[in-house]
């Protein structure tokens, strides 16, 4: 029997629970005292051990090279089971949890992404570095529809660090562009609290970056809308724009917008109009194109096309 066959057989007889136990034993052996003999714990991956830059690379290579899709899926579920076990215990060494979180992105193990949420819900307070690690794994899985639900729920957790919300928004938009309105609504409370904190701290430069980042994302949405790949562009764009503009500290707002009061007022007026269900006029659409061009760095030509598109929609309505 070849190594590959042996490994395949080893995992084919294991449930997700068994795999979680095997992984836990492996992690513990790896992170134990270096003088300890770990050869027993390494079976069946010893054919791969030491071949790559890290044992997690070796573990990934073992899965990639030896497990058929069904076994791989069960292996990934096993990682999920392990994450949930780690979530419920407070005596697990940091290294073990980090490795389990790392594997989710590395394999990739989409089946375990829900369990990341559970881990962070229960351990995120005590281990704040895990938010970054989990986002790194989500980022690696992105774009993928499977991550949308758990990632949204993750951002909505109270302990989620607000300053990372914009990145979660990015991965959500990448994974399901058509739902960007819902994504925005998920991250908005975090961004609002961030803006509030930032104003208090007067971190104008960083805030400028946040605004620019959000504006870039919006510009991307507009671009995909114009390219016909997204059909869900509605006035939420204005909401984002408003959030962005309103959050700018005054000196930056002046610098970016030239005449901020007019534009902010205009956005507010239009927002109100749309909220009341009043259809926009042609002039209105033109002004939207100007704002896109001016604020979000969308090229003039694109902004004009955008304005025309809005105009067409308005005429139809």
């Amino acid at each position: 029997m070849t190594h590959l066959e042996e490994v395949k057989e080893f995992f084919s007889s294991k449930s997700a629970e068994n795999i979680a136990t095997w992984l836990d034993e492996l992690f513990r052996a790896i992170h134990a005292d270096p003088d300890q003999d770990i050869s027993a714990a390494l079976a069946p991956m010893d054919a791969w051990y030491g071949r790559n830059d890290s044992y997690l690379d070796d573990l990934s290579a073992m899965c990639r090279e030896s497990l058929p899709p069904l076994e791989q899926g069960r292996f990934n579920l096993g990682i999920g089971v392990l994450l949930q076990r780690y979530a419920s215990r407070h005596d697990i060494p940091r290294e073990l949890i980090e490795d389990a979180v790392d594997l989710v992105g590395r394999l990739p193990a989409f089946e375990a992404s829900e369990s990341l949420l559970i881990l962070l819900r229960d351990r995120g307070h005590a281990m704040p570095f895990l938010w970054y690690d989990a986002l790194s794994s989500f980022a690696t899985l992105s774009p993928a529809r499977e991550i949308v639900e758990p990632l949204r729920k993750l951002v909505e957790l109270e302990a989620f660090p607000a300053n990372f919300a914009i990145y979660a928004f990015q991965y959500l938009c990448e994974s399901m562009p058509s739902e960007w309105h819902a994504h925005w609504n998920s991250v908005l409370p975090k961004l609002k609290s961030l803006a509030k904190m930032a104003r208090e701290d007067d971190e104008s430069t960083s805030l400028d970056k946040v605004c620019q980042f959000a504006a870039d994302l919006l510009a991307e949405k507009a671009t995909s809308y114009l390219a016909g790949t997204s059909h869900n562009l509605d006035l939420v764009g204005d909401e984002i724009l408003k959030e962005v503009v309103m959050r700018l500290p005054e000196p930056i707002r002046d610098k970016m917008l030239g005449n901020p009061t007019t534009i902010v007022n205009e956005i507010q007026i239009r927002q109100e109009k749309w909220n009341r269900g009043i259809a926009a006029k042609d002039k209105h659409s033109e002004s939207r194109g100007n704002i896109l061009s001016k604020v979000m760095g969308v090229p003039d030509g694109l902004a004009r096309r955008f304005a025309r598109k809005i105009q067409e929609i308005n005429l139809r309505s």
Partner: protein
Amino acid sequence: MHKDALDWLNTLNSDTTGEGAIYLANLYLSWEEEILPPDVIRGFLADCHNAQQADSSKNAVLIYKDVAKKFCRNGLYSIARLMEANLIKASTTITTDNFIQYISDKVKTSTATLPAPPLRKKPSPTGNGEKEFKAALTSVTSIPDWYKTDGISLGAPYPHQTYCWITHARSLDRALRRCPAGMSKGDVARDALGLVEDVANVHHRVQFKFNLNFDPKRHAVARPHALAGNRRFAACLPAPTEATRYYDLKWGATADLKQLAAGMTDVAGLPERISAPIPFGEIGPSLTIDYLGPVTIPRDTSPHGNRQYAKLLLAGISDADAVNQLASLFKL
């Protein structure tokens, strides 16, 4: 024991993957060049034999790797060939998947309004993926104290960091500047450094460059592949011109996998040493990081390719002679 060693070395050499033949060649050369003294080789072979007796179902290559790991941990390299203290601009590479291991909690728990983005394990496959990854890498590594300093070293594999493969940064840079069309810098680095990666588009590589002050007392250094039990094609190459030059400078030589694949006989890649783990905190202040790109061209590690390489290493010595001479150490 002579007979046992003979039998075990023959089993190692006849391993169907051809890896055993490479290990045999390197072990023989380590003895011939007096990198390892006879008593160490005897001890090593005795341990291999005993491990094989304890688990006869395990193949000889796995036994070799297991025992080599234990020897490495027990200070193998302190008895290896030493060099003078000198300061060099050194280089090593890792896959992007592992880079996150080096990022400090200061970055991960940043309270900045817009912190550095969580680094993906590899660039997104979308259009701007590599550009975005580079920007994120720059963003992370431009933060003062972005790297961990406790319990982390340059050297693979972690967490059991037993050794670190290093080359002259300028040698790798020179190779990268000659990156041919159709290859990524990740491919070039992989080939020149002899890093076996037999799958395409799975790994991306980053390069660490740093000042390293070699101190023979702290950085005991061996010629590559004395006993280290991985698949890396690094070794002393007896005949080729570049390898000889490296040897004179007390360096080993990697095997350039591109030249090897093309059937060349002079396959010397870059100068290389193995060092004991290098604490990250020590090199951090001089550290620069470059994203090299994906490895897009797999390099075959077929049994035939492995055997050809072992033959190149032995440079005219037959594998049977290598087995006999190593086993004869037990007659001394």
